């Protein structure tokens, strides 16, 4: 199977530690993560807020590129891009009228021959947990992780068809294969406020406050995420949480790929562990040496 990696805009910017660690993991596992050539923005929330057709067409453009480059699957790390790309494919496959309109806009047939997979699915389904466990060099034994899936990986369930929408375990299983102890906590699929972070950061701060509180009460040493916007909200907004609520957590929010990479033997710099606001290195020191 030939895959192309769709990074999306954030992974080339504020989420570049996600990209860095994803590449480090895949390189160690021998998984090809070559970027889709000439990729363009999926349109994200602003496109679907503005026009359903524009939203699907902007995502479909990338599926078309993948198809032209003879790729079978587009592998995505950002939960928001993953949601848009998989939704676009789903909608074109299930709505003939929409498909016709997209084809008119793209001046090309709808690119339905390309699958859209999340990096977690690549590790779970293509690579396999047993194979992953066999490559672990520094088991994360004793590290307690709250796996945070957020909204867009799992919802809407009929479209995303990713794990169990109310109680997903994909990330838990991947990190358990790396030796970590994942905690049971109620915030797994609660919303962090997403892009309200810019227009209404006060709302994001109160949602993040609740999530961090739940993760901390469950005994987590770190929160693991699969989305650059979730990471930014949970990490960068912690000082604002303290300013707005008086609650102080110092709870690192790391990408699941940074933890997997750590277990596979990658170093802190290679994984971009120096890039978050709440430094995870003191917590992870025992596995870094």
């Amino acid at each position, binding site marked *: 199977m030939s895959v192309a990696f769709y990074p999306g805009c954030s992974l*080339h910017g504020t989420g570049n530690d996600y990209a860095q660690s994803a590449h480090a993991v895949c390189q160690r596992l021998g998984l090809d993560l070559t970027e889709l050539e000439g990729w363009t923005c999926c349109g994200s929330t602003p496109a679907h807020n*503005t026009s359903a057709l524009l939203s699907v067409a902007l995502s479909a453009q990338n599926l078309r590129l993948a198809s032209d480059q003879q790729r079978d699957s587009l592998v995505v790390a950002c939960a928001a891009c993953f949601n848009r790309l998989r939704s676009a494919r789903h909608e074109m496959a299930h709505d003939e009228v929409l498909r016709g309109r997209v084809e008119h806009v793209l001046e090309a047939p709808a690119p339905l021959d390309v699958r859209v997979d999340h990096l977690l699915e690549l590790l779970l389904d293509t690579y396999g947990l047993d194979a992953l466990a066999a490559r672990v060099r520094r088991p994360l034994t004793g590290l307690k992780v709250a796996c945070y899936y957020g909204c867009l990986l799992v919802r809407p*369930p009929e479209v995303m068809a990713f794990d169990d929408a109310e109680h997903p375990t994909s990330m838990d299983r991947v990190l358990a294969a790396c030796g970590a102890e994942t905690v049971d906590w109620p915030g797994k699929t609660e919303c962090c406020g997403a892009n309200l972070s810019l227009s209404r950061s006060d709302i994001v701060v109160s*949602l993040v406050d609740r999530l961090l509180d739940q993760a901390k009460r469950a005994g987590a040493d770190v929160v693991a995420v699969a989305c650059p916007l979730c990471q930014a909200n949970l990490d960068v907004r912690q000082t604002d949480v303290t300013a707005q609520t008086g609650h102080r957590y110092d709870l690192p929010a790391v990408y699941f790929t940074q933890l997997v990479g750590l277990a596979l033997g990658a170093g802190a710099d290679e994984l971009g562990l120096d890039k978050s606001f709440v430094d995870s290195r003191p917590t992870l020191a025992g596995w870094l040496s």
Partner: protein
Amino acid sequence: MPTASDIASEAALAFRARIEHLSGQTVSSCYQCGKCTAGCPVASEMDTDPARVMRLVQLGARERVLRDEAIWLCASCETCVSRCPQACRLPRVMDALRAVAEQDGYARDNRGAALLNRLFLAQIRAFGRVHEMSLVAGFNLASRRPLRDVTKGPSMMRKGKLHLLPQRSANLPAVRRIFERVQELEGSET
């Protein structure tokens, strides 16, 4: 609230039909159970909660709902969709309301999500990708809060998370063409 004659008016029916068409959702099937509101992470911040937004659309209360801040607070988290007994995709109704509010000039003074959406799409049109630093700076300036999060930018810059210059996709012409053709097609239909 609208009166009985407002509800039956042609304008009210036309508005409801427009939102149902744009969203692809049968708004009239909502029987106001309130599960959407119960699970909504931002309902407590809304003057008009999600179930009430649905009711206003049913009643065709165009002015009231298009001016409501609630439509710009929905974070599209899709929690309501996974719980609605009528399988209504409420975020699509919110999307349709935002699109109509934008088209009909109700979002002109919005310095929140509507402004962000416009700037974000302008970036895609300019570069084919989004340049986070100028997006945030542009948003802070246009929303007249230039010092918002001012301490965070330099730290991100030091950590190598922000780039001074935008990246331009090799497929920018294709993206511009998409914008033009969508506009053309949608313009011919209204």
